[in-house]
């Protein structure tokens, strides 16, 4: 197997200090705009701001949206089902001291 070593890489920590506009958020999640709007309407993710043009998404929402997409695809659940699973997973994470 080949191995390549790269120079030092800096990433972005997905926490409340990073924000995304709707189009940046679509790129970060690799999905179309309509799908993000659907996730917001179904309560999977909650941006700040009143309407689409002013929506601000926080870093943790990227993680949440990407997990929701996998759950919907792989477990064949609907958006509310994915949102419920995510809430419970986050609660479990808190109980385990994260």
């Amino acid at each position, binding site marked *: 197997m080949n191995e390549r070593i790269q120079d*030092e890489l800096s*990433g*972005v920590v997905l926490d409340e200090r990073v924000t995304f506009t709707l189009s940046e958020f679509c790129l970060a999640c*690799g999905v179309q705009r309509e799908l993000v709007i659907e996730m917001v309407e179904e309560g999977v993710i909650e941006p700040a701001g009143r309407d689409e043009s002013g929506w601000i998404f926080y870093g943790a929402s990227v993680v949440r949206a990407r997990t929701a997409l996998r759950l919907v695809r792989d477990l064949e659940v609907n958006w509310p089902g994915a949102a419920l699973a995510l809430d419970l997973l986050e609660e479990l994470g808190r109980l385990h001291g994260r």
Partner: protein
Amino acid sequence: MKFKDYYEVLGVDRNASQDDIKRAYRRLARKYHPDVSKEPDAEARFKEVREAYEVLKDPEKRAAYDQFGENWKAGQDFEPPPGWQARPGFTGAEGFAAGDFSDFFETLFGGARGGGFTFRTGGRMRGEDVSATIRIPIEDAYHGATRTVTLEMPELDAAGRPVRRRRTLNVKIPKGITAGRRIRLERQGGPGFGGGPPGDLYLTVEFEPHPVYRAQGSDIWVELPVTPWEVALGRKVKVPTLAGTVDLKIPPGSGSGKTLRLRGRGLPGTPPGDQYVELKVVVPPATDAGLRELYEKLEREHDVNPRAKLGV
């Protein structure tokens, strides 16, 4: 190439109904899905289950697969019959990235394709997002550091075919990061196709177990052994913190299990976390003659019943 027994993977009979297959898949998917499962090797198990379902849920693919008959056993060397490639009509799996499925699957049914949720414009396809875990000592989160991560990642070989290769990256660990956070490295995931952009790399941070510190979010917890007289008299003791040793004055009369807070001594941030110091009273054994004498004096002169509240 090894033969895969998709019926065995899903734990169903060869004559199972489409409903049986769906039920078996959903049950196994909930058990092994990497986002919800605590099983070791959940990811590998889930991929197998997903691949089996991709074939058996589709009556056409299932019929094609069934042609090989039940004489084939999982792991046997397998070559598809001549002319198989020419079969029209199979489109691989929608919504999955290259490298998600086995060679066996891709030879029989074509490569996985994006689509579904992912961007696909014309022949362009965004590369696979890759997730991995990075385990670091708590000290790295306090000071910031650069860590080396080695991952297996999809890449394109000289002929443009996806292969899995080992890649080593030096990743900057930002100061103050907490366990469970993800670091997103843009365009460091799998390669795109047809001029599409590469995917992203997501690293989930975990802390290695530490002999002294335990992190909870950005707060740090330390269990501090103290003597009975240190807590009773309220003495000043030394406490380790991530920034070095500090002095801590114990309020007189503190008991075992009492927790004291050192404000702002946790992981850095705005605001920084705190350090919690849990006092653990340690009673030295009466093996030393002088100590034994002192214990006996206490016993004689101070008749204390710590169990009075229990009614005994």
